């Protein structure tokens, strides 16, 4: 098959492909936004001094991290309607499952960041009369957040790649569209190769963007300060 033929194919199915890409991006962004909030809550829960809060939070985090994404996806989509009596569209189920998975990893990322802050910072805050809550949100979390940025961006990339699995429950993401095109054209080799290249290029673009961003960060405020001036 010639290259012109393949480009013709891409052009013919451009609507499906673009819709697929759009759904994939939407899912990633929405899932990550939910996961950032839920992950932060779970992280504070797992650091709580009250066992009543800590135990369920740790259980939640471990559950999210230690069940396969495919299992979570199918569980949310097919089991939650019976367990909780709520029925979601495939898209919503997919977003919830991806958010579950990511929030577990992010919670761990956050916890590691918070625990990496030197004890002296906490002691200095205490000696200035700060309560635990105040020293957390004024001193510890802002510093920890900076250390978390690479981890958060990594999780973003992982989440992006994980979206390909949602085609299983018929969410029209890029992978799902690929299946449609294959069944219409009977060209699995060409189409799936093309899709692989598209995923690769998109993830590569995000990764390069991330790398560029982390290279630019040291030019701003606090980041700048970490460089010796002379």
């Amino acid at each position: 098959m010639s290259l012109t033929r393949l480009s013709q194919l891409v052009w013919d199915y451009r609507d499906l492909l673009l819709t697929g890409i759009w759904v994939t991006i939407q899912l990633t962004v929405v899932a990550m936004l939910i996961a950032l909030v839920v992950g932060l809550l779970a992280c504070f829960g797992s650091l709580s001094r009250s066992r009543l809060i800590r135990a369920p939070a740790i259980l939640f985090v471990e559950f999210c991290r230690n069940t396969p994404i495919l299992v979570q996806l199918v569980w949310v989509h097919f089991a939650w309607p019976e367990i909780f009596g709520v029925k979601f569209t495939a898209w919503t189920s997919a977003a919830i499952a991806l958010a579950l998975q990511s929030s577990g990893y992010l919670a761990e990322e956050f916890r590691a960041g918070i625990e990496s802050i030197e004890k002296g910072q906490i002691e200095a805050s205490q000696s200035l009369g700060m309560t635990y809550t105040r020293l957390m949100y004024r001193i510890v979390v802002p510093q920890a957040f900076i250390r978390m940025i690479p981890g958060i961006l990594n999780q973003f990339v992982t989440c992006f790649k994980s979206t390909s699995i949602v085609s299983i429950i018929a969410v029209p993401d890029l992978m799902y569209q690929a299946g449609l095109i294959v069944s219409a054209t009977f060209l699995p080799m060409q189409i799936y190769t093309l899709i692989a290249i598209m995923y690769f290029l998109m993830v590569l673009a995000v990764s390069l963007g991330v790398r560029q961003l982390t290279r630019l960060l040291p030019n701003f405020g606090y980041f700048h300060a970490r460089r010796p001036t002379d």
Partner: protein
Amino acid sequence: MPDDPRIEAPATVVGASIRLEAVVKRFGKLEVLSAIDLDVPSGSTVAIIGPSGSGKSTLVRCVNHLEPIQNGLITVGDTLISARGLEVAGRILGHRDVARFRTQVGMVFQQFNLFPHLTVMGNIIEAPVGVLRQPRKEAIERGMDLLDKVNLAEKARVYPAQLSGGQQQRVAIVRALMMQPRIMLFDEPTSALDPELIGEVLKVIAELALRGHTNVIVTHELAFAREVADKIVFMDGGKVVEEGIPAEVLDHPQMERTRTFLGRIGEAPARQTSQPKEGAP
């Protein structure tokens, strides 16, 4: 004079007295402070000297309750610190009141512990504005005034990482003073500094920090201790071995252990041991 820690410090700061009675501090099975008795009268300056591991740092950290004690009693103003926690007039303090109590006790750490994500000004007004609820503008004015006194006014907008160790420690002292504490605790304030930077920090402590409050200074700088302290306490092995006015303890030590320690550190001052750097500018 009531020393209620919940009452705002007056404009002219009055030091609170500190008294330790049979204070015991253990880390697991290791006894770091063994029945310490110590009196620091209101407004006086006490220097604590002694070999590393003698419990000097732990002692000052117990005074603002960064370390809980296992036995005995510490009286700071009218606040009592015991194994049960803090209490004022028979009432056990919750964590909010403990935090409130600490606003009256300034602390300067060996490792400075400035907040790296805040500018110098941000560091010194953080607690006055956030904890004491002082108007931001007022805090900044007072901050500039104090920074000016330690010759760092032009550094107000930079971040701690851009400062030398000596400059950082001067900022840390200003940060503690901004709270207008009644007590200042110095935990080896110059031990992490390069030898050539020690002088500037000691000067700031002597000129600025020691006015009006009660001060406890843990230090290896004997000449400095002699100059500023009303009383010198020599500690070893978690006990107070000897205490008295500087001339007595430093020049005519009564105890053998004090003599040995002074012989080691006094004749070859601590500063010189780390100095020989070939061709240092």
